[in-house]
């Protein structure tokens, strides 16, 4: 095992511990309590919050911005793929060549999507006004992670740089907005709870 392998493993450990602290804080902050009289149903509303409410046919953030939405979907799927690949590497499981080519192709599309998202942030006024360094760093680290994941599929010489990038990313996740990986679920749950309690979601046909 190389030093950079152990660096990435240690970073993963630190990352998991800090994210678990965030999860612990969220789950121990107390369940939602509402003294008003419940009007609707919670379970279907929470299920809707994670399904129908996110559908590109419903969400303006999706259907009014289809190219960005599609780029975002690819970017997220690419990130999950790169994470799986990282676990494979950590467990020293090798991936066969044709599968490598498939993953590499997919990761290239997602990395291009990531670069597109960075450029959009740089060049669209309203996005630039909304952004802080964390937004750029997060985007760049995730995109580099995907790019280096492609490199190591074809050339072992990239492993040291790959593990350093992975380590930086893992250590950075709990610092900035990338921790939405944890908070997203809690936010959607609460939104579903709120609308379900008041019988707003799931929407009725009339």
């Amino acid at each position: 095992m190389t030093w950079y392998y152990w660096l990435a493993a240690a970073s993963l450990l630190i990352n998991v511990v800090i994210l678990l602290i965030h999860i612990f804080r969220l789950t121990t902050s107390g369940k939602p309590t509402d003294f008003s009289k419940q009007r609707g149903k919670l379970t279907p509303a929470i299920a809707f919050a994670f399904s129908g409410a996110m559908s590109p046919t419903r969400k303006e953030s999706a259907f009014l911005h289809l190219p960005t939405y599609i780029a975002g979907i690819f970017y997220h799927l690419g990130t999950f793929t790169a994470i799986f690949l990282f676990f494979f590497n950590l467990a020293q499981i090798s991936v066969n060549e044709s599968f490598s080519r498939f993953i590499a192709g997919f990761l290239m599309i997602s990395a291009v999507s990531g670069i597109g998202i960075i450029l959009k942030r740089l060049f669209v006024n309203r996005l630039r006004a909304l952004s802080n360094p964390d937004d750029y760093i997060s985007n760049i680290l995730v995109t580099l992670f995907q790019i280096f994941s492609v490199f190591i599929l074809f050339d072992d010489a990239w492993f040291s740089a790959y593990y350093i990038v992975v380590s930086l990313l893992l250590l950075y996740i709990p610092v900035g907005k990338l921790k939405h990986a944890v908070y997203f679920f809690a936010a959607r749950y609460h939104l579903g709870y709120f609308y379900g309690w008041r019988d707003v979601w799931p929407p009725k046909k009339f």
Partner: protein
Amino acid sequence: MGELSKDKIEKGIEVFKNQKDSKLRAHINSCVHCGLCAESCTYYLAMPDAKFVPAYKVDLVASVYRRYCTLTGKVFPGLVGARKLDDATIEEMVDLLFGACTMCGRCSTHCSIGLDISFLVRTGRKMLTNMGYEPAALQTSVNTALETGNNMGISDTDFIETIEWLQEDLQMEVNDDQAKIPLNEKGKEILYTLNPREPKFFPLSISAMAKIFYAANESWTISTKMYDITNYAYYTGNQDESKIIVKRLYDEMENLEAKKCVLAECGHGSRAFRWEGPNVIEKAYPFEVLTSVELIAQYIRDGRIKLDPEKIQELVTIHDPCNLVRSGGIVQEQRFIMENAVKNFTEMTPHGIENYCCGGGGGQLAMSEYNERRMKIGKLKADQIIKTGAKIVASPCHNCIDQLAHLNSTYKLGIQAKTIAEIVADALVLE
């Protein structure tokens, strides 16, 4: 611009502490600054400036949270855009959280992550109010309600005289000198509330509801002590003052031993009493609370009132009040009523939980300093109305009716804005 005193900052960031659940923590840590919520907000649509993007407003609150409540924000504020509470931050927060958000919640349903943006805006308003930065005009409405029992400062004598005059009118209209608008009667089925705009400016909407109660042979009363359904402290975010107002109506329900509290057509008032009220006083109500729209729909379903849609021939559309629809789930009831009360009905696009705010929500009508913005964002509603070709716009909210009246004169819409009760009263068949 200097940082505020330690005491003031403590008061401000108090809103982030002692949370009863994880809701605030979840939402305030979730925004990814994608900016895709921009086009869901009437402010951004009317004035495409970055500061009107919902996420920008959220970030004002979240950046203060990061600065004072997170390790990264304390150590590397520049990295994560953590902001100090100083005069510049306060000025921007007041301008955008009070003056550029109607708390309509439309952006929340469209946010890519699922942030409850109006909840975060209200958290920011609470923060500002805790530090004493609530807009004076909005606070005046709260003070008047606290001092006089209603936000218009109507004296008991004036109120009683108005009701007596309306009662005489009702008796003539229904040709029954036993017809009453009962005041302060104990043990009735319903305690009916009002928006103080009704006795002050629109008494005919009280007559309309009285006529409906008469037709339904309802057991009801109005309290002279506490009839005001509005609660502007909900908009300033002052929990203590909001609690006093909620508690007054709660106590009056107990005092008059009424079984149901029926909320007049007032979006924010309904929300503040029905949904937020029990949480503000931290106990469940032992009585039923429902809006007059639900009650009227029930009367029609039960056959307690009869309507003749032929009486209203003009094309009618509905403006959905955000607080009633998106934050209260009352969507079908007003449509069911219209189906029975008018001959020609059409919908705006979009409508229901997708509706656009009229521009008067969030206390905007009480803050004259933002009038210009209010009329600009209302243009979207005006255009929606024009597209329907409707001559009557029905809306179950007096606040919306007021804004619709302003839009009517500014954009020359040539419409009549009416409450649901007024339309139902016009279509009533008295046997």
